[in-house]
């Protein structure tokens, strides 16, 4: 799992424009979180940067939304040249809606108070899996 998180962190630096001091928070003794991916961990620690407006935000900020990959962002940018992006377009993009919706706003959608929830991390992190002893 640590190796998986290291690969994810490497990917963030190469393709998503993160710097290393953004990924590794000093509060956790310079260790990556095991229970959630580094991008989601960063977004939860920097909620003041969200929600991101899908129709006006620059590419660098769109790349920081949890659940958005590089291909999704490129399709978004191509689509928003000819249309105003709405909530239904997120469904057509096949993104994980539960992860994405608290962090974005669209022409007909606002996340409201979702970002202020105290247990947002628990809601968004993947549920723990019982490993087998045998």
């Amino acid at each position, binding site marked *: 799992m640590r190796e998986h998180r290291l690969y994810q962190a490497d990917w963030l630096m190469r393709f998503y424009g993160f710097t290393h001091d953004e990924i590794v928070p000093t509060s956790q003794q310079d260790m990556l979180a095991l229970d959630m991916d580094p991008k989601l961990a960063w977004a939860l620690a920097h909620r003041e940067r969200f929600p991101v407006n899908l129709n006006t935000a620059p590419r660098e900020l769109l790349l920081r939304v949890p659940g958005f990959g590089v291909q999704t962002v490129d*399709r978004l940018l*191509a*689509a928003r*040249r*000819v*249309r105003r992006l709405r909530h239904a*377009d997120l469904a*057509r*993009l096949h993104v994980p809606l539960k992860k994405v919706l608290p962090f974005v706003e669209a022409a007909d959608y606002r996340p409201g108070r979702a970002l202020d929830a105290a247990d947002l991390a628990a809601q968004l992190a993947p549920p723990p899996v019982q490993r087998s002893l045998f």
Partner: protein
Amino acid sequence: MQRHTITLDHPTDWPGFRQAARALVQANVPPQAVDWRCPADAAEDLFAPEPAARNTLPSPAPDAPTLRVPPDFVHLCEQLILHRDPARFALMYHLLWRMAQGGSEADAARHDPLDADRILAHHMVRAVARDKHKMHAFVRFRPVVEPDGQTQHMAWFEPDHYITVANAGFFIRRFTQMRWAILTPDASVRWDGQQLHTGPGAQRSDAPPPDAGEALWLTYYRHIFNPARLKLAMMKKEMPTRYWHNLPEAALITELAQTAHERSAKMVEAEATVPRRRIAGTTAPRARPAGGAPLSPAPPRASPGTEGPTPAVSSATAAPAAATGRATP
């Protein structure tokens, strides 16, 4: 509003579609005023008119501009026409019509990756590409010796879409030196070494029955099937079950999968076998130089008390005595 009915020569009649669509767009005919027919779908259509000798294409409107479309739209349509859905012609014409309107409608049809028509078209094209790829993998030829002594390899296949003629190029490049034929319910293709011949659809009974070589293939398949590495979900993902009834080896899979678990358990429990130092059945052992140095490079062994390799044993009775110290490598 006058309705137009266009009947194409065959289900993948791309030049016919192109000519008709060009004329219709230039005559400003909206998509809802056109009925697209082709002979394969006529049998299921309740409202099919009598087949006309020639399509009556409208003349272009006086103010019709020349329509330009992106080249990848043309490639998309060339693949899309191979799909089996009868609504493909209407979808292609609808996209073309929207591109001709200009303004935001044309921009959406040309450039919008989230446009509903474009998404549907891309799904259909991906289905056609997947079907072509599976056809590359699952066509099985059976040789037939003809009266003039030459061998013709014949195969029966049932593709999901009308891809047979479009896929013939792959088999020509792969089996150029052989004479082969692929029969499908929609069309058949035959290669005589020089030229490709296309023909109408055939039936399964036209294809040859299993030949003598098939038993060898089945035996080979049974022996390379590794029971310890069986992953049925992955296998069915790569080799969907709808192709199994035309694959000779698929009949063995159920039985092999059922016995896989106990076979691999037996492999785990079985005694370790001793690797032979020499192939059994060779004649005299070769003379060894003094000092016991090995003639052929042998892997370093941790066997106690022996210097150099012990002489090869080819009889099972002598093996256990020498092998007890080396049972686990």
